């Protein structure tokens, strides 16, 4: 079967130069006649000779040189081969001159290479070639594409090819062809295609458009609408994703805050600074890796997690023991005192690390993204952070529900005096819990260092939002914090494109105030008599 198909393809391609490539064919490459070079590139692009592809690729990579005798050779590291035959040759490296390629040739080279790849046996290579062509197909490739379309079996590749063909045919002189092309392009979901469609019906300064035929215009309008709806879907999903991503960060920032307020009635304005310290701990660990283990640099992030947790935990414990324990049940005073602490922490970081932002790089495995559908690329770092915050949430939940400390925390939150009487070491529970809340914020700081600037004011920019999450979600409620965080994140991201980030913030604030009108205790409040007085 396979052999039959190969023969079939060969018959189709009979028009291309059938003889093996020789040095004579490559002669135009030597010298400065770019028109001749272009003709050769185009000719090679229509050949099915393996050697032609090698030459084109080498030309594109800049690996082709010519000796003073006019022999075109291909460099393979330190050795050279004959570009036409692939036979090894010995040449004097000093004698060689690079084959010069200009910009226009590069364009032709890309397309020629793509055209060649369209006939490759490997579907993956064909797909890649088709995708490349879809971006910028010139009219001269119409014949290649037409042939490839006829031969292509894979529906996905075929669709791409058809669209490339339609893009070219959009400039056809035949109105029927243009109309058909527009209809085909309606199945595309690329913003580029949409733009070039729109170009044809938009009126220019003189009030005339490129496309004048009413039937074609109508087809184009329809096609644009179709593309828009499929693009809107992608955008919608992208917004949900970035909302979830923002929400997960807010949730991480607010988790510790909600726990400590619920437990101790202390408003911790320095909570944002724990985020900041976590981020700086990440920066420090990165520095250590750079200096001592440059090979394992990509793995500094997992190492930063325990460091950030421990550092912020310790800072939290120290603050609790020295200042915060004296302020239990006095939220207003605690607000002021912890604000003072936050000023001191910020200035301390400025003194140690300097007032400028520091650079924390994404490890290699976190850069890039996953293209779910066209126009929807989910960056890996955001995905990792979402997964990470859910992981932290799970751990917090397990600790609160499954451990002795968790039992104590819940007990003290509900009735401090009673827990005290039952022999719960409330003061130790307070210290541990505060440290724990700080540690979670430290982990949040590690996550933040991967998506934003790391500077002394990092925490300040999150503190208002995290308080909003707590207010919205209800105090001391894990479920409330989660719902509040994700809710705020998603609402924010949906409002932003309409009215801008600032107005979105204001609308969200108004929404929260309106919400509190209805439910003053937040979404997930404890109800009944215990709440009052």
């Amino acid at each position, binding site marked *: 079967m396979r052999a039959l198909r190969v023969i079939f393809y060969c018959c189709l391609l009979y028009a291309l130069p059938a003889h093996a490539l020789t040095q004579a064919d490559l002669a135009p490459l030597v010298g400065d006649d770019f028109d001749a070079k272009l003709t050769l590139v185009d000719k090679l692009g229509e050949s099915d000779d393996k050697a032609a592809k090698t030459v084109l690729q080498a030309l594109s990579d800049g690996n082709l040189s010519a000796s003073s005798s006019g022999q075109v050779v291909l460099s393979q590291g330190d050795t050279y081969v004959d570009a036409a035959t692939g036979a090894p040759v010995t040449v004097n490296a000093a004698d060689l001159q690079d084959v010069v390629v200009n910009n226009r040739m590069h364009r032709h080279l890309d397309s020629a290479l793509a055209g060649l790849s369209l006939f490759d046996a490997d579907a993956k290579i064909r797909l890649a070639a088709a995708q490349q062509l879809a971006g910028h197909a010139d009219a001269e490739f119409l014949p290649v594409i037409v042939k490839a379309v006829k031969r292509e079996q894979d529906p996905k590749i075929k669709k791409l090819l058809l669209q490339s063909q339609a893009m070219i045919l959009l400039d056809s002189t035949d109105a029927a062809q243009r109309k058909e092309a527009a209809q085909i392009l309606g199945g595309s979901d690329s913003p580029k295609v949409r733009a070039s469609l729109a170009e044809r019906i938009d009126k220019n300064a003189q009030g005339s458009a490129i496309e004048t035929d009413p039937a074609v215009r109508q087809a184009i309008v329809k096609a644009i609408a179709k593309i828009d709806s499929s693009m809107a879907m992608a955008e919608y999903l992208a917004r949900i994703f970035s909302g979830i991503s923002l929400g997960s960060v807010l949730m991480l920032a607010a988790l510790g805050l909600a726990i400590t307020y619920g437990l101790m009635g202390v*408003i911790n*304005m320095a909570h944002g600074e724990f985020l900041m310290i976590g981020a700086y701990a990440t920066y420090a660990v990165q520095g250590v890796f750079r200096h001592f283990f440059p090979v394992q640099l990509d793995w500094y992030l997992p190492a930063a997690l325990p460091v950030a947790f421990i550092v912020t935990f310790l800072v939290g414990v120290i603050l609790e023991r020295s*200042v915060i324990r*004296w*302020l239990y049940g006095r*939220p*207003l*005073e*605690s*607000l*002021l*005192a912890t*604000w*003072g*602490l*936050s*000023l*001191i922490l*910020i*200035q*301390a970081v400025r*003194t140690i690390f300097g007032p400028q932002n520091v650079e924390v790089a994404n490890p290699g495995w976190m850069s890039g993204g996953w293209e779910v559908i066209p126009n929807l690329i989910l960056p890996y770092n955001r995905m990792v952070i979402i997964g990470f915050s859910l992981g932290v949430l799970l751990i917090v939940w397990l600790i609160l529900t499954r451990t002795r400390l968790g039992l104590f925390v819940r007990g003290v939150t509900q009735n401090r005096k009673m827990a005290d009487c039952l022999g719960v070491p409330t003061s130790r529970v307070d210290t541990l819990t505060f440290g724990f809340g700080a540690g979670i914020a430290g982990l949040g700081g590690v996550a933040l260092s991967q998506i934003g600037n790391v500077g002394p004011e990092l925490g*300040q920019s999150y503190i*208002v939002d995290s*308080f*909003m999450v707590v*207010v919205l979600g209800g105090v001391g409620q894990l479920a409330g914090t989660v719902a509040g965080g994700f809710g705020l994140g998603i609402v924010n991201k949906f409002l932003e494109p309409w009215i801008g*980030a*600032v*107005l979105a*913030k*204001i609308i969200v*604030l108004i929404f*929260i*105030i*309106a919400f*509190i*009108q*209805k439910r*003053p205790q937040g979404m997930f409040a404890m109800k009944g008599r215990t709440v*009052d*007085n």
Partner: protein
Amino acid sequence: MDMLKKLYGPTGWAAILVALVVMLVMVPVMALLVPKTSAFHLSAYTVTLFGKYLCYGIVALAMGLAWGYGGILSLGHGLFFSLGGYMFGMYLMRMIGGLGQYGSNLPDFMVFLDWKTYPWWWWGTDHLAYVLLMVVLVPGVLAFVFGWFAFRSRIKGVYFSIITQALTYAAMLLFFRNETGFGGNNGFTDFKFIAGFPVAAASTRAGLFAITGLVLIVALLACRFIVLSKFGRVLTAIRDAETRVMFCGYNPLPYKLAVWVFSAVLCGIAGALYVPQVGIINPSEMSPANSIEIAIWAAVGGRGTLLGPIIGAGIVNAAKSWFTMSFPEYWLYLLGLIFVLVTLFLPQGVMGLLNRWKRT
């Protein structure tokens, strides 16, 4: 006469009289008539600096009334202060006239944005009387609307603080934008004239100082009147036991709202006096940090008193001026420590300390 007696005793009135004479007579004389060579001459810089402290004193007084007596810790007072400042700043910008860098009738930043006319909200800002009205109305109305919703749903304590902080933060973001027509990042500056007088002249400075001093005294007396009336006692009762007050037949909403709006208006007036003296207003005045600092002025001076917050504002800001000049690196450490130490060890502030000292 009876009422005056009730407000302050003879010593109190004597002190107020002295303060008035110092601020309205002595300072202007020392600034304008005493020759520059004399040791008793006050430079325009000093007059402006103390004028600034007086403005802060008004704000701290407003905070002391709302927080110390009403139990409302507002983190939005920086916003009301800035709003008053911006309102008056609009007038000052109009008074620049064609003297700006671009020689246009519009403020420089509008020329820069390629705006051709004033947006509608600048309407009337070239009339001093209108602007003075707005200085009171804009913070007042905002405080009224916001407070009505907040107090109606019984948002109190730290919740209220957080929500007002968010409000301030949102407003700051809004004013940072160029499209809102308040000069974006740079705000308003380069003022030239106020009611026909050149802003930078020593006589204008002395005059503004005297007016600020007078406003502070009047505000103090008004607050004293409120605090001593039954209104003031209901207010502290609401602070201590709101439910009991309700079951006594009082509706706490108008009480809280009234004191909160009055406090906001005082801040607005202080802001309007501040801007011509300092010569600039920009959105960073609205940063949440500023509002919290106002609270610490009141705390340092002593909550539950009226004089305390004014003194506190003076102490903290004098320390700030000195530190940021001599040891700029250490000011935030000190400010942070003040926050921590005052809340932990000086809940009654300086006034509490004085009272204790007086008793022993």
